[in-house]
């Protein structure tokens, strides 16, 4: 049987890689991809804890579902913002989007 620790280490590694993507990538879409990786690692943790610690309650799965909804909402609004910024500034490089910096 797979011990719980394996899932946790897997999720931690995925989260760290996602964080690297968020911090190091220039392109705004690539940053969103990093966020997706991080959300997925959270989901692995939630479901693993549900399976190992409280399989008789459904809380972990419901949490994962809420994370799905949040991820979908985040991607929808995030990508819409990227499209909008692209139309005004014709760039989606995160460093160049500094209209608020005065």
């Amino acid at each position, binding site marked *: 049987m797979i011990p*719980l620790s394996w899932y946790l280490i897997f999720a*931690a590694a995925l989260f760290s890689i996602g964080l690297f993507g968020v911090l*190091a990538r220039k392109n705004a879409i*690539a940053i969103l991809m990093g966020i997706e990786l991080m959300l997925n690692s959270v989901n692995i943790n939630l*479901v693993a804890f549900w399976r190992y610690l409280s*399989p008789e309650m459904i809380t972990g799965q419901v949490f994962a579902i809420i994370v799905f909804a949040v991820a979908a909402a985040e991607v*929808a609004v995030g990508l819409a913002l990227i499209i909008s910024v*692209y139309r005004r500034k014709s760039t989606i490089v995160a460093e160049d989007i500094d209209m608020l910096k005065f």
Partner: protein
Amino acid sequence: MTPLQIIFLLVAAISLGGAVMVVTRQNLVHAALWLILVLFGVAVTFVLLNAGFLAMAQVVIYIGAIAILMIFTIMLTRKVAKDTDEQLNSNWWGAGIISLLLFGGVILMLFQWQNFQFNLPNLNPSVDPLLQLGEGLVSPNAFLLPFEIASVLLVAALIGAIMVARERK
């Protein structure tokens, strides 16, 4: 090593390799395709955790909708997302150090925790998690409120995204 463990290690290795490709590829469409591989790996992990419904939801929502939306956006903003440009910013080594530190810290903390090597409890075969889920989502003393609020959140996101992305006539 049981076969299940080997399958898990294989899936985890492929997913992590794919994740590294996602954050390093220059070509964004390739990065998106690697992202799909990672998402699929996570779906397989859900299956290994006996969460079949979540695995299917993962494929339908993430691969079928979110990844496709991302590829569309990449193609819409194609003019600046050239494959030849440097895709990592100048502080990428700092980001790498932070990520490594975070990973090390989390692992350290996890090893302090005594439940870390927790082994798998048996599922009660008479309880179907899917039925439980369906019931829990609409019963007032379980998760009715989060469920409805998730719906409101999604509609709000829809309205907001349409407002932002629409072309002004």
